[in-house]
């Protein structure tokens, strides 16, 4: 009982601390440009929250989160592009590359802000639900699931590139001017976008924590560790996994949607295999099973990418690969597990010493 209390007290303290850092310290310390970068990292962290749930807790190596990130991002960007163009006009790139004189039918609903906002997370969740129900019922798991989700990311990116007239092709949707009526080049509005992103991230973390601590969260870990046993207990592991997968997709979708006003662009380059892997690397390095680890890992890796690529342009890619391999091979629990690992090592060493001491004592 005491333990539980202290745990939730610690979590509450953590939330307050994070809120102080995000809402008070960061805007004071960082320049507009760096704060904009932080907003971008926080979006990556939102994806990591979902990955922590699906991969860390549920054992689903989601190597295709770029798809859901992209669905959310494009849903938001499509609305903003339509809004920028004004009523009756086509978005700029359609006038350049397209042949159509009016919006394609599948663009039209996104003119409605409520539809577009809802679509940023409901669309990825619906896609994930559809895919997940096929995949998990057929009991596809492990590496096969990872490969499947990665193939999906590649296919989605290639499809987007091919539809230049309606999706902007490789360029993606760029040059976004306003965010629900507010000019994005105004630093005050950029700051507001940052605050929204920070608030949403904290909200998603709270939601994920709630899920993890619930009975469902325990069931999810049980499915990860021994799917067959859970099945014999009378639960359907497919449904358990599906929920985690769909929630993670919704989080990635929200992240993509908020990435658009923060960075001003969404393109297939953010969706394909490489970015999908990058999403996972942050969580893996920080510790995929721990919410705090995954979030901080994602932010740290994204920050390191900017910092290192400013100093050593060509070296970054190698460093990133190395980071992933080292984290998975030597520290599967990520940096979050470092303390536990060290404690265990020490305990083991102490036990060994004890074991070594006893025979000596016996001999004497």
């Amino acid at each position, binding site marked *: 009982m005491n333990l539980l209390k202290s745990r939730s007290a610690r979590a509450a303290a953590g939330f307050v601390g994070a809120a102080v850092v995000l809402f008070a310290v960061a805007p004071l310390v960082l320049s507009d*440009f760096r704060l904009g*970068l932080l907003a971008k990292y926080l979006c990556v962290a939102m994806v990591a929250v979902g990955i922590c749930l699906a991969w860390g807790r549920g054992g689903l190596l989601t190597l295709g989160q770029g798809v859901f990130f992209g669905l959310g991002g494009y849903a938001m960007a499509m609305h903003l592009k339509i809004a920028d163009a004004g009523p009756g006009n086509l978005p700029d790139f359609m006038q350049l590359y397209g042949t159509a004189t009016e919006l394609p039918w599948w663009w039209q609903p996104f003119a409605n802000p409520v539809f577009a906002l809802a679509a940023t997370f409901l669309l990825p969740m619906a896609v994930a639900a559809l895919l997940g129900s096929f995949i998990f019922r057929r009991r596809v798991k492990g590496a096969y699931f990872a490969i499947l989700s990665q193939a999906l990311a590649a296919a989605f990116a290639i499809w987007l590139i*091919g539809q230049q007239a309606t999706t902007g092709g490789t360029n993606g949707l760029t040059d976004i001017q*306003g965010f629900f009526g507010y000019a994005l*080049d105004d630093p*005050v509005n950029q*700051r507001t976008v940052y605050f929204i992103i920070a608030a949403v991230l904290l909200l998603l973390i709270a939601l994920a924590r709630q899920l993890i601590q619930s009975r469902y969260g325990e069931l999810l870990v049980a499915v990860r560790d021994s799917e067959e046993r859970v099945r014999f207990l009378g639960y359907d592991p497919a449904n358990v996994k599906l929920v985690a997968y769909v929630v993670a997709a919704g989080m990635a979708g929200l992240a993509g949607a908020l990435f658009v006003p923060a960075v001003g662009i969404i*393109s297939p*380059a953010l969706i394909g295999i490489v970015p999908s892997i990058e999403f996972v690397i942050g969580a893996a390095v920080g510790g995929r099973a721990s919410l705090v680890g995954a979030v901080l890992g994602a932010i740290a890796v994204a920050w390191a990418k900017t910092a290192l690529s400013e100093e050593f342009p060509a070296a*970054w890619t190698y460093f990133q690969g190395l980071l992933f391999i080292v984290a998975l091979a030597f520290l599967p629990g990520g940096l979050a597990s470092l303390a536990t690992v060290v404690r265990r090592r020490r305990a083991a060493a102490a036990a060994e010493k004890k074991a070594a001491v006893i025979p000596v004592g016996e001999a004497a």
Partner: protein
Amino acid sequence: MSSLPHIHRRRFLAGTASLAAVVALSACGAKTDAAGSSDKAAKIDVSGDTVKVGLLNSLSGTMAISEVTVRNSLMLAVDEINASGGVLGKKIKPISEDGASDWPTFAEKATKLIKEDGVAATFGCWTSASRKAVKPVFEKNRSLLFYPVQYEGLEESPYIFYTGATTNQQIVPALDYLKSQGLKKLYLVGSDYVFPRTANKEIRAYAKANGMTILGEDYAPLGSTEFSTIANKVKASKADAVFNTLNGDSNVAFFKEYKSAGLTAKSMPVVSVSIAEEEVKSIGTQYLDGQLTAWNYYQTTPGAANEKFVKAYKAKYGQDKPTSDPMEAAYVSVYLWKAMVEKAKSFDPEKVKAASDGITFDAPEGKVTVDGASQHIYKTARIGKVGSDGLIEQVWDSGKPIKPDPYLKGYSWASGLS
């Protein structure tokens, strides 16, 4: 403006009133935009005896092979200008950033150069996608970008100077050349991104108006190396010539398959618009011998200015390094910026822009002139043939520099394009 979260919450609550709210918000945002426009210009750091410029190229990723040569060329121009006294008495301090062949990264680094470093101008970008990604950044911050690569046209940003060819200085002359040679049945092969798709759209419009036929149009993903199907389709089409807009390493695989399909420069010539001296070297001369290219500059272009450029480049980077069209356009862009700044007597982008019209420079490709209205430059079109030594020999040129026409307004066949 900081009341956005408020209105956000209200909108969630007031389901039906949301549309009205959005309309109201739009009006508000527009006002901000109009009122705040005067103080949004980027601050240029001219403290001390240096002026900073940004060099924004991919130093890693798939585009690095090409973009590093542009970077080298930019550095050569900066060093030369610094050796001769700098610009307005200030030495140029280049700030180097890596776009990493990733478009959002380009946008991020462009923002950094403008806002954190306070550069007076930025030079770089290669792919159209990277240019499209940074265009809003330069426009919002009212800072200048000099873009040195031939592209698909249909663009005129007030904050970009385009020193590479637009369509009517490269693709249209190439089509004119093919037509004059009686090569009227074309097959289009390209990488799957903006430049090839837009270029092919323009080629189709040209063909329709000029009695040429397009027998096929195929795209391969950037970086793809699987071309046996395309090569066989090209062969089966019995076209007169192939118009090639493939970019990067795909060209290696394409020309190998082309040769093994039994096609040669004699039986079915290929005109390429993205293969310059550097690429010829990596593809292999045996595959390209006799094939055609369309550019505005070759290493072999005669003239004292080019001899000096080639010599200086090889002295700095190695005797085996060729010079190419985008490298030359990059080199020229730094000198054009210098001339504009000196005419304006200021680093202020607005004054530099105002001073740009009519600026000339004795470039390696010949004399170039800035067209202030479109911010492109007058360039001579040149068709070349790849020789067995890996260099490209000119077989035709337009005689005089062609006026840039990015929207192809002067061509009636292009009226439906934009």
